[in-house]
């Protein structure tokens, strides 16, 4: 039995397929490179593979998909349990790449370098600053499966255990989005049933406690894709939103029932105390600005981003919005509409880190591929100092809307720590 909708579906799918992006030449070489990288990471347990591989060749560097069915960059996952959720890609036109001095020179106050390996040989993965001199770090029991949290003293290189991280049976999304607040570390994991387990452990050390279990009525099978990184309020509550379902929820750190946050109906958490519209899911609302409207739940302050008619895919943070003009040209500017710039950058596929930073690749003065950290709020960019591999590809940790104050990456035997909080 076929009706108009079924016939229409056949034809629309065939036609739409013609608009798909095309594969680049040498794709298999690049795939093999990534596949091997991952294999090595798995074998060595290093798995510092939050990496990007940028192919060399041509002028400038392609970061984004041009307006419509034009070429696309590729993100890729490691496993279903990978740790970092990303926000939508904002496509950008081809423009000249960024440039800049080495990061230590551009933002000396914000960059710190420590040995990559601890004296005991322990492999740690930096997560976030606890304070100026202490990092929250994790260790992994197996690939991307965090088994413990530590405080790492940058001065003495001493590790202090905060808590073991449990993985209950049936967990399909491992512990992720470690967030610090109210003297606790908070994170979540997800079970096959779609149940979200919210966890907390005291920063001072102790046992991880399951604060609450919540389910928004969707199993993993039914698009139950989990929650966005939770926030912790000053008075000790966890606040969170689901990834693709409106509503803001809260539960006391000490445990209790998850309740909808009053005033959060139909909205999403950006970062406490800011909640707003619209969700980050780009498919559902291609023409509605993401977080164009924000409200501060502590003060009641409202902020509306300036959006001009015809602009598309506008994605806002607290400070900066990015998007496409009606003619397809990319822009970024402050929320109030000022300091608008066109092009000149390629959006970080995971969104802006710390509301204003992204990674872009470009050519250094010697013509070689370089990776830059760009600060959209000031227009400054800095070379991370990462050298390309022999095959010309270059890897670096992914960055995105959920990157906190810390961005870290390895250069040779050093771990470079960038403190976004110290870049003014």
């Amino acid at each position, binding site marked *: 039995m076929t*009706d108009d*909708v079924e016939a*229409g*579906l*056949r*034809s*629309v*799918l*065939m036609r*739409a*397929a*013609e*608009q*798909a*992006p*095309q*594969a*680049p030449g040498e*794709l*298999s070489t*690049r*795939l*093999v490179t990534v596949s091997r990288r*991952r*294999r090595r990471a798995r074998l060595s347990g290093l798995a510092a593979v*939050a990496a*990007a*591989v*940028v*192919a060399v060749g*041509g002028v400038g*560097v*392609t970061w984004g*998909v041009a307006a*419509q069915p*034009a*070429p*696309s*960059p*590729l*993100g*890729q*996952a*490691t496993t*279903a*349990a*990978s*740790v970092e*959720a990303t926000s939508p890609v904002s496509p950008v036109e081809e423009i000249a790449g960024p440039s800049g001095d080495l990061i230590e020179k551009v933002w000396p106050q914000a960059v710190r370098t420590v040995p990559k390996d601890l004296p005991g040989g322990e492999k740690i993965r930096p997560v976030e600053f606890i304070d100026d001199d202490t990092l929250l770090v994790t260790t992994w029991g197996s690939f991307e499966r965090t088994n413990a949290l530590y405080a790492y003293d940058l001065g003495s290189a001493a590790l202090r255990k905060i808590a073991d991280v449990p993985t209950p049976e049936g967990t*399909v999304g491992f512990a992720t989005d470690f967030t610090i607040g109210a003297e606790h570390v908070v994170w979540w994991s997800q079970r096959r049933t779609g149940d979200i387990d919210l966890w907390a452990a005291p920063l001072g050390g102790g046992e991880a406690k399951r604060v609450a279990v919540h389910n928004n009525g969707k199993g*993993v*099978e039914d698009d*139950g*894709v989990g929650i966005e990184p939770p926030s912790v309020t000053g008075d000790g509550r966890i606040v969170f939103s689901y*990834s693709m379902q409106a509503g803001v929820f809260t539960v006391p750190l000490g445990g209790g029932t998850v309740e909808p946050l009053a005033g959060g109906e139909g909205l999403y958490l950006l970062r406490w105390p800011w909640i707003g519209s619209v969700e980050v899911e780009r*498919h*559902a609302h291609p023409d509605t600005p993401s977080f164009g409207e924000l409200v501060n739940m502590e003060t009641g302050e409202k902020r509306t981003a300036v959006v001009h008619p015809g602009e598309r895919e506008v994605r806002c943070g607290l400070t900066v919005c990015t998007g496409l003009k009606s003619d397809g040209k990319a822009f970024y500017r402050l929320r109030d509409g000022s300091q608008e710039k066109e092009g000149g950058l390629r959006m970080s*596929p*995971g969104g802006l880190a710390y509301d204003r930073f992204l990674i872009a*690749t470009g050519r250094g003065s010697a013509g070689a591929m370089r990776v830059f950290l760009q600060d959209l709020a000031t227009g400054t960019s800095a070379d991370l100092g990462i050298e390309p591999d022999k095959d010309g590809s270059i890897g670096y940790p992914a960055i995105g809307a959920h990157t906190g104050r810390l961005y870290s990456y390895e250069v040779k035997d050093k771990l470079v720590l960038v403190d976004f909080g110290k870049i003014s």
Partner: protein
Amino acid sequence: MEDDSRFADFVAERADALLRYGYVLSGDPHDAADLTQEALIRLHRAWPRVRRKHNPESYVRMTMARLHVSVWRLRRRERLVWELPEVPHRDALPSEAEQGLWDLLKRLPRKQRAVLVLRYYEQLTDDEIAGVLGISSGTVRSHASLGLGKLRSAVPRPQTAKGRAR
């Protein structure tokens, strides 16, 4: 080495078709590229086994469909950037009705959409779809009927469509 060269041949030959499949599956060029790339990387890892026991193309298509409906989509963290040749800018589907249906598809839950794509683009039977997605045939039918129901209720009646297309 020989395996790599066969893998390369496979990619060269099939990547564009897989991107088309990824595009109708996801409705988004970024996701199409993501899905294709991720599935091909997984294929590379499993290549000797897949070549012995399965058809690589079915394996990749199944991986893409499953990835698309899984939690994976929001959990990617690695980036592979490729530079692509310029392609002509094509804006929208030819008719307003087609564009409307394409937009409606974007609003369906991913599993419903995947079932419809597998049925009407891949032309698989419900049992085959069940195998691809790893769910029961009954679930396939219920996703299909829910998805079609939503499309039917939102698509303008034929006479309206004609009136508009005039």
